[in-house]
């Protein structure tokens, strides 16, 4: 039954999208995190997805399934934004504090995209479950 593989595939997609949502939340939450040192500023994070052919443990299977895997979480090497705030407790000798370069609009768009993709996977899962349950009732009608 290759239909059972769908649960692996959709599940991997859901967990990947959830991780993407997580990084978006992290980026937005840290948008205003101030640091007195250029190198200590929060770096914007984005996951890099990759498709992995997974051998199924299923007997009578139809080859491999392409599941989604998070390859790495990439940290954008963008320059921090300097602010001149000499009275800030974290300010450095020259009176500067630094904030991360978070593009809030891009993050929001990313969030919507992740949430839509997650919903697609949930829909696939529900439909497949429905089909399987109906198959179990085959010949009973």
């Amino acid at each position: 039954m290759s239909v059972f593989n769908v649960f692996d595939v959709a599940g991997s997609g859901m967990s990947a999208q959830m991780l993407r949502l997580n990084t978006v939340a992290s980026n937005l939450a840290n948008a205003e995190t101030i640091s007195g040192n250029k190198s200590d500023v929060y770096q914007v994070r984005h996951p890099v997805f990759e498709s992995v052919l997974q051998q199924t443990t299923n007997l009578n299977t139809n080859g491999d399934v392409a599941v989604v895997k998070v390859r790495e979480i990439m940290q954008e090497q963008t320059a921090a934004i300097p602010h001149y705030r000499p009275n800030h407790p974290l300010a450095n000798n020259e009176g500067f504090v630094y904030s991360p370069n978070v593009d809030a609009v891009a993050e929001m768009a990313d969030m919507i995209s992740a949430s839509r993709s997650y919903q697609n996977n949930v829909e696939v899962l529900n439909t497949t479950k429905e089909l399987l349950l109906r198959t179990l009732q085959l010949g009973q009608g």
Partner: protein
Amino acid sequence: MPVNFEKAFGIHDDALLLFERRTQLISENIANADTPGYKARDIDFNQTLQNVQNKNGARLKTTHQGHINLQQQKFSDDIRFRQVEQSSADGNTVDSQKEKVAFAENSIRYQTSLNFLTRKISGLKNAFKGE
């Protein structure tokens, strides 16, 4: 008169296997909608049906026990990459909308075959009872 189940069920038991395989492929496409470089795959239902009915698709024969039996991987040689209308910058060829439509269509077809089978089974049951 012996009952020939192969004849009684027609193409629907084979079709069910094909739809099952398609469900898996399309779910892979949907799950990998944001994966860079992923190429969407699908099975052409009509083409495969013709191959199954005519049994004309060139198949590899295993004549030695060391040979890998490709027949086990059903429909694996009927899988094709999707043609894209507009390619994306990251090399991904999944069109989420199209995949959703294909998935919905496939699940309806699956249920149709399932219904046909259920009816045929209940028909056979009635014949056995002879009431």
